């Protein structure tokens, strides 16, 4: 029974920040930077294990943003200009789709440190097909539905490759669904995700953030995944009559957008209240979003606090 894990990209350490600048100024080599990133991955993994988290990630430290491994590695798309990452003072390169997307099953694995994760129960995090399509510029001349289908095929190949590589849990991130989508988009998003998860043998989740999932929770709980994640800082869920029976709720109670360290009691109360309100089969404590919007030192403290809260939640069961 899971109690806590991470949901996105971890910040880079001050050492890696300095080295990446030094590489640009030709005062350090790419090899030195890669070695420092690998050290950070080992630290992030050790941190999660010390905190007792249930699924382990490598911190996605080689991911420049959620979509970049795909826009870098999938034929038919490339990274475009800088665009604001929702309502944050951070940015991503929006993918530009120029033709039919060709699944490879290699894009995510190229930036995951399998060696460091060997022997651990590890999770992978991908964009949902709807998020990939919605956050890309369609310059292909193909219809929006064709692009969404392509995105689903790409992500299905990625998910299958991750499963074959030993991944125990795949989470699909979708901030677009709760911020930019209309209700009419939900069936399309549902169908696209179904094409990805159909027949997958690992546990799956759809995690939403930066927007209030409450108004669409009734639809979200029917998406073809085992777990549904919500950002408790973006809405209260008070207005929803939806039931999450049969699902595990990922309660985004740890704020990845503020440095203030939460109290254990508050985290547990939030998770339990959300679970009870929605009648979820189970609940796991997670950050509401990637922790990369924090400096490393704050993210590290938050992970430790998440572990303490998970222990309290476990004891309360």
């Amino acid at each position, binding site marked *: 029974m899971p109690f806590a894990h991470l949901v996105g990209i971890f910040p880079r350490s001050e050492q890696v920040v300095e080295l990446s600048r030094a590489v640009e100024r030709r005062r350090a080599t790419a090899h030195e930077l890669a070695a420092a990133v690998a050290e950070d991955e080992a630290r992030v993994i050790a941190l999660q294990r010390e905190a007792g988290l249930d699924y382990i990630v490598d911190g996605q430290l080689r991911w420049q943003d959620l979509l970049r491994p795909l826009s870098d590695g999938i034929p038919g798309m490339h990274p475009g200009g800088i665009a604001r990452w929702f309502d944050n*003072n*951070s940015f991503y390169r929006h993918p530009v789709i120029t033709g039919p997307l060709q699944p490879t099953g290699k894009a995510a694995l190229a930036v995951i440190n399998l060696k460091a994760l060997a022997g651990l129960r590890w999770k992978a995090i991908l964009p949902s097909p709807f998020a990939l399509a919605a956050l890309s510029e369609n310059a292909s001349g193909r219809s929006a539905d064709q692009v969404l289908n392509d995105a689903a095929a790409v992500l299905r190949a990625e998910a299958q490759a991750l499963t074959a590589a030993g991944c125990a849990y795949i989470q699909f991130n979708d901030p677009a669904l709760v911020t930019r989508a209309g209700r009419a988009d939900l069936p399309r998003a549902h169908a696209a995700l179904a094409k990805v998860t159909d027949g997958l043998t690992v546990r799956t989740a759809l995690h939403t953030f930066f927007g209030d999932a409450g108004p669409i929770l009734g639809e979200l709980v029917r998406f073809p995944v085992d777990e549904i994640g919500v950002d408790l800082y973006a809405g209260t869920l008070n207005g929803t009559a939806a039931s999450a029976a049969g699902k595990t709720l990922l309660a985004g109670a740890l704020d990845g957008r503020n440095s203030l360290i939460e109290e254990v009691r508050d985290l547990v109360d939030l998770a339990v209240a959300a679970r009870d309100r929605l009648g979820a089969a189970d609940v796991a404590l997670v950050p509401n979003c990637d922790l990369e919007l924090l400096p490393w030192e704050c993210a590290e403290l938050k992970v430790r606090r998440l572990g303490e809260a998970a222990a309290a939640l476990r004891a309360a069961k």
Partner: protein
Amino acid sequence: MKVFPTQEIGSLAKPAWLVKATRGQGPSEVDLAEIDRWAERLGIDGTSELKAVLNTEHPDKERVRDWAALFAIRLQEVAGLDAVYDGEARRIEMYEYPVRRIAGFHFYGHVRSFDNRYYRKAAVVDRVRLTEPFHLDELKYVKSVARRPVKIPITGPYTLADWSFNEYYLKSIDGGFRDLKARAYAAKRAFTLDLATEVLRPTLHALAAAGADWIQIDEPAATTHPEEVPILVEAFNEAVEGVRAKLSIHICYSDYRRLYPEMLKMRVDHLALEFKNTGDFDIVKLFKEQGDTRELGLGVLDVHSDVIETPEEIRDKILGAAAVLGAEKIWANPDCGLRTRTWDVAFAKLQNLVEGARLAREALQAPIRAGGPTH
């Protein structure tokens, strides 16, 4: 005053010799040649003193900054702008510089902006308090050397709050932990209003007392959270309470529709906005529809492109906006500060800005000379 005056918005790129001097490094031969090239182009004399300062073991950084400010001012004046400043030559950038002068903040490590770009983001850990009004020395220097009217830019309270972590005010809000969104809103409002009243207001008063006739308050975060526009407006009005100067607000890379109707309550004289980047000049109709009769600074230069906009293109954009809002309301400017462009590109863009405005005035006069406008 003539119609279609021109202005810069804020920062220019920092010359290599300035950056090196602030790091304690001496100038290269290329840097010294650049000083000569720009001094000749801008009609600046006496640069042997600058070179002497740069070549000392421990350069007088303030003196170097004076020189950098002088070059930036002259660049804008020679380009022909009607309102100038110093290209923010003394400021690290628009967030960290003021925050370092406000008690109550603590800087943690870096946060990623994108790719391998990072910035330092502070957390407010105590009630904010102004340690000393800032920008006074730079204003004094600019006014002592500028030959054109001066407009001073300053970062606004909402953007300072939005770009910071909020610890102190979140802890101070008594409202339980259940409605996190409502609690965060209340904490953001308290933080922003404290910045407005305890930091910005005394600073703006000090600047006005020091002779600032026109103050531009920069709020690039204005529409990041549309539901917080009331906080933006309330804080702006609190900050400028009693300030006797022309006041403008600069907003960029935003959806201006999200500002209205709340924006009509803002006590501001001039809106300096970005238009060229989005290419959506039709949005000027929004101001007409909303009954917003304040001056509009029309962004007609893309600050993220080296393409030099033509005077004719700029003229047409100005005339298009004037046809909607009235010629007397329109200023012309870059979308934002030109700090990401080289001085050669920035200078060429600003020269064309001035020429485009002149062509627009000429076009406006033409029907009058021919016997008055026809409809």
